[in-house]
């Protein structure tokens, strides 16, 4: 899978492994490359325990990255198995072994992490070992000459794997019923967010707090989502307290965000994600079409196109409209065989055929979902 030419659209049948690919990227960025080593026990089941990916570099070299999650067994005496709340709040600790290496040329190893120690080659092939995973590199080599990784390709793959923003599709029942989203700001912290509306409120509030709400407002106006996004503050009665504390709500055209439709919240969430992205990040959006009207989806795709221009964007989809928005060379076919997920691009002959089809017969969405690729 190429991660250097902008848009990649993953298409494939249910169960082919599209979500697994996206979850894999997430777990790499959050855990193996990131620094998180603790998880709520309820989250751990969705993290792939062993993961191997192969990517193509801008110089057409093949890099393999793989990790293995290693649980650290701790005492569970604090967990009351009859108390679900206790289990849910319990955390598990993990460490990660990982290895990143070229699969072609001299098959150089870029780095290798085992039992909490990471080894790699410095310039002129001098070996080095650091405590922690590869993200600890900066802590040990902070002088200016060594700010960047020493070996070709190391910085590129590290950046690609580390700087990922992912927006998953909503679960089938995201909210049991609509309710106003009211969050509390106290001691410079926001009260815990519960559902998608609360989480979105929190993100928008942070944008407001940073004085950067104008951009979201103007994008919402041009896609027709709303004219004005505002934050309303309700001050608490604790006048004697020196701690600044208040309840706030985020409103779209005067309507509390928690009372908006699921589709509106979904559009707003995707817009927030693309607007907040920074140059060089990989943006992953799982099934952007879910809950969104086709006309709104067209406008949303226009915004996604604008904000991710020149960036890496990975989209998984079952929507002919989203597929038709992409060009044939950006399509990645996902299929599963013998328990493994494979990703492949359209071949040259297929691209030639589809270009002829696109000019006269139909769009890419029709072509992909016509079954023409099923026999391969």
């Amino acid at each position: 899978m190429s991660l250097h030419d902008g848009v990649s659209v993953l298409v494939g049948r249910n169960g082919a492994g599209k979500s697994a690919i996206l979850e894999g990227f997430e777990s790499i960025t959050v855990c193996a490359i990131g620094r998180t080593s603790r998880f709520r026990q309820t989250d751990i089941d969705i993290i792939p325990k062993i993961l191997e990916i192969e990517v193509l570099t801008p110089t057409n070299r093949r890099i393999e990255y793989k990790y293995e999650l290693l649980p650290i067994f701790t005492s569970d005496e604090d967990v009351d198995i009859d108390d679900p709340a206790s289990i849910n709040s319990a955390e598990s600790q993990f460490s990660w072994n990982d290895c990143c290496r070229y699969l072609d040329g001299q098959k150089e190893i870029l780095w290798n992490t085992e039992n909490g120690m990471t080894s790699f080659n410095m310039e002129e092939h001098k070996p080095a070992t650091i405590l922690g995973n590869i993200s600890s590199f900066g802590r040990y080599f902070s002088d200016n000459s060594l700010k960047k990784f020493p070996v070709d390709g190391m910085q590129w793959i590290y950046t690609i794997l580390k700087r990922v923003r992912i927006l998953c599709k909503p679960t089938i029942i995201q909210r049991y019923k609509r309710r106003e989203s009211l969050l509390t700001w106290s001691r410079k912290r926001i009260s815990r967010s519960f559902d998608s509306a609360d989480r979105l409120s929190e993100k928008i509030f942070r944008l407001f707090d940073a004085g950067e709400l104008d951009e979201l407002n103007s994008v919402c106006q041009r896609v027709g989502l709303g004219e004005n996004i505002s934050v309303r503050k309700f001050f608490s009665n604790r006048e004697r307290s020196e701690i600044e504390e208040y309840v706030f709500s985020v409103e779209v055209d005067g309507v509390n965000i928690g009372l908006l439709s699921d589709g509106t919240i979904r559009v707003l969430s995707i817009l927030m994600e693309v607007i907040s992205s920074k140059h060089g990040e990989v943006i992953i959006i799982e099934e952007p079409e879910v809950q969104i009207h086709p006309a709104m989806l067209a406008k949303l795709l226009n915004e996604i196109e604008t904000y991710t221009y020149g960036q890496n964007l990975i989209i998984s989809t079952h929507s002919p409209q989203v597929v038709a928005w992409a060009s044939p060379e950006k399509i990645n076919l996902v299929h599963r065989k013998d328990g493994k997920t494979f990703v492949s691009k359209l071949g040259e002959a297929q691209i030639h055929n589809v270009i002829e089809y696109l000019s006269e017969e139909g769009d890419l969405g029709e072509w992909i979902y016509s079954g023409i690729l099923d026999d391969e």
Partner: protein
Amino acid sequence: MNGFTVVFSMMSNIKIALIAEDETDCAAIRKIVHRVLGAEVATKKWASNGCSTLKKKLTAKLKVLSSEGCNIFIVVHDLDRNPQNDSLNNEVALRSKLEALSSEIKSLKHICIPIEELEAWFWSDPEVVKHLGGEKGKAHPNPHEIKSPKEKLIELSRDGNRKPRYSTNDNDKLATMLNLDLCSKRCSSFRELVKFLRSL
């Protein structure tokens, strides 16, 4: 006074069908129509969501739009590049094909073929370019020579933080501010469109 009444009465009988490849193109053309003929002119749009669908369904859609009261038809189709050799497709051949597909329509009709993309028009106007890119960009005397004009507008609109200020959802807004005379001078497809509208 009488002249005004006559013109107004004529315009109130007009219902223009706008046919283009996507919603943003339809919205931009609608703005141009209203700027030339007045905001009271009724329009009805069909965005085909793709060039092949436009060609495949054009004949049928024109019939439907005609039966819904449209008496003037504007068909907008980009002159795309061949992705395999990057050259522009044959404009004459495309126009002939669209003429043939719409031959059953006997009333007033105009086929507009922007070179590569309608977004090229916006590059004709220094004020639009300034609106998007500040002092960074320069209007182009021959916008049809710009390759990937849409992507170039996105690039132009990026600020210091690389945040873009333009998306194609802005096309109708840009059409509102576009200098009609300058764009007519610099873009032949636009010139012919405005000429057609002014002839109504």
